[in-house]
């Protein structure tokens, strides 16, 4: 089991990360990935994620352990940005490799649902020149409840 969990304060290249991850996974039948990026359009000029050093990365590592205990994965990758981003910039990349594709799908979705509503990140957006802190969304809490 390879687990690669990173909190990055600089931009990253999701295609290169995913290619490197997949290259190592030759015994896995299926690799599922999720890439979240800053949406363009909708008037958002910039997005900033803040984290709290003592909690955020350790929390992501615990999440990865939970996922790898729950599904028989060959490898799991979680990369999450912090800091200032602009439309089109990647925010989060999750990838799961496993022998059976359903495990990869479930683990990747589980990781995303928990990153969205349980990880120690705070987000603000700049629109019309004004920064505004984003409140958590009800739909993200609902997504969590599927996992019991």
């Amino acid at each position, binding site marked *: 089991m390879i687990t690669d969990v990173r909190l990055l304060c600089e931009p990253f290249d999701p295609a290169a990360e995913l290619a490197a991850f997949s290259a190592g996974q030759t015994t896995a039948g299926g690799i599922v990935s999720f890439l*979240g990026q800053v949406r363009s359009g909708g008037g958002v000029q910039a997005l900033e*994620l*803040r984290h*709290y*050093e*003592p*909690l955020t990365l350790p929390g992501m590592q615990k999440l990865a352990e939970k996922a790898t205990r729950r599904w028989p994965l060959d490898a799991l990758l979680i990369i*999450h940005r912090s800091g200032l981003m602009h439309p089109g910039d990647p*925010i*989060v990349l999750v990838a799961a490799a496993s022998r059976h594709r359903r495990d990869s799908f479930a683990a990747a979705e589980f990781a*995303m649902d928990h*990153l*969205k*509503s*349980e*990880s*120690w*990140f*705070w*987000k*603000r957006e700049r629109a019309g020149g004004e920064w505004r*802190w*984003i*409140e*958590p*969304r009800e739909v993200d809490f609902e997504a969590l409840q599927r996992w019991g």
Partner: protein
Amino acid sequence: MLKLVFLGRLEDAAGAAEREIEAAETYDDVLAGLEPELAATLRDVRIRLALDGVLVGDPASLSLRDGQELAFLPPVSGG
């Protein structure tokens, strides 16, 4: 001295991401030393506390020492 850390929207409420205050023994002592409006904001039950990077279960049980870091964590909105 005690270091206070304000995450997310609490940074705007506090006017800065961090602040150093005189040593205080209890959580109530900490809040009593802050502007009343900020103290009221921090009393929101949805705000979690972390002392030196460890989540605090019950703020009333806190016993603070000089040089510690107390972080105020509002509801997260990640990814």
